[in-house]
């Protein structure tokens, strides 16, 4: 069974059509990158997965059940969510931020503490007293690492990333992209990753889903994307070739 399925999903706000009949499946363990311009509907598609919004028509199935059928609190506890600005609670220490969902799930305290320590190591924030720091005492890159650790904490089956490295400097971004690949090898989660950065998409995706004005323009492996004839794919590939030429 697929981890996530979109069945002819439409999403409208008033007269504006954001998603125009999106149908796709996301397989367990894959990293599906939702690529597209601003306003192409990629963040909307992401937020339909964890029920932050509901479709105007069509259905999204997670683990077989539609998002409308799911108890949304339980759905979200099983899905990790990393956003661009981090969304860490400013009044919680790093430890409390990461341990949030485990504690909501009533894990024994010892297990939570151990989990936080493990995750801090996994995101290369071991040593020092990171656990006791507040988000405002961290750099942007460190905050994003904590955000990823928080998303992984309760061992969810699915991870959602909404342009998580967009606000970071290029060096830190590269660092975190590498971290993402390492974590994927270590934890093997199903990931849905939104970005408008075609290089990032090529680097991280097992499959790329290109969204254009609410429609699916392309879906397939990066190698297939590189030879896609679709105009929108060509537009992004132009960007990629420019960047490579500049190197």
């Amino acid at each position, binding site marked *: 069974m697929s981890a996530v399925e979109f069945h002819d999903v439409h999403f409208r706000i008033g007269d504006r059509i954001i998603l125009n009949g999106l149908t796709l499946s996301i397989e367990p363990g894959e990293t599906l990158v939702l690529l597209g311009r601003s306003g192409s509907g990629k963040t909307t598609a992401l937020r339909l997965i964890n029920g932050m919004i509901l479709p105007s028509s069509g259905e999204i199935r997670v683990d077989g059940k539609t998002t409308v059928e799911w108890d949304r609190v339980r759905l979200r506890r099983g899905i990790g*969510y990393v*956003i661009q600005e981090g969304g860490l609670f400013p009044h919680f220490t790093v430890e409390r931020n990461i341990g949030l969902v485990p504690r909501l799930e009533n894990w024994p305290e010892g297990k939570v503490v151990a989990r936080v320590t493990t995750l801090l190591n996994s995101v290369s924030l071991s040593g020092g007293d990171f656990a006791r720091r507040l988000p405002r005492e961290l750099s942007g890159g460190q905050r994003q690492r904590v955000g990823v650790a928080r998303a992984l904490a309760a061992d969810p089956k699915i991870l959602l990333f909404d342009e998580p490295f967009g606000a970071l400097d290029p060096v830190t971004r590269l660092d975190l992209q590498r971290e993402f690949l390492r974590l994927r090898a270590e934890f093997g989660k199903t990931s849905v990753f939104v970005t408008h950065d075609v290089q990032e998409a090529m680097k991280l995706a097992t499959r790329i889903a290109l969204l254009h004005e609410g429609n699916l323009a392309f879906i397939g492996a990066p190698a297939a994307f590189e030879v896609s004839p679709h105009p929108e794919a060509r537009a992004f590939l132009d960007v990629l070739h420019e960047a490579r030429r500049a190197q």
Partner: protein
Amino acid sequence: MRRVVLNNALNDVLQDLLEEGVQLLGEHLVLVLSAILIASAIAIPAGLFLASSPRARRWALGFASVGQTIPSLALFGFLIPIPFVGGIGPHTAILALVIYALLPILRNTVTGILGVDPVVRDSAVAMGMTRAQILRMVELPLAAPTIIAGLRIATVTTIGTATIAAAIGAGGLGVFIFRGIASVDKLQILAGAIPAALLALAADGALGWLEKRFSR
């Protein structure tokens, strides 16, 4: 001999003022604390509820604002003839003081909750927190400094307004002030005004400290 007699007389006056002052201070504290506790019990939950309803918010804040515009002595006067809650005495005064204390507490509670970063709130929802958990663990702690600031303003102004309660027989430090005005006795006036001012400063300081502690 006459100097000694005069000194003794002065001592007696000061002693009487002190004894009565302590009693009036106690009455004043009862008026203020009752009013603040009741106003908080109404305004804080109301504020939490109103934060999610812009239309109800306008009505409630409008009502509380109108309450502010009524001159205090007039409000005390209006309430006297009302059955049950009216009449001469502390409970009428407390009712009026509650009405005055509502606006700052209500408005600050609403502002505090609305001031929580929407990204943080969105994040909390996405983590799978229930509405109650979000309120308890995220919104209230982050809104606390603003809510306490509202309590601080309400408390300080209530300490001042409570001096007028003496005019309707509710006791408090205002008794000294009104008596001093009536008998043109500066010492009496000060005996009421200075403790009230000190009390206001102390409340302002204590709640200000609390506000800062929550702002960490």
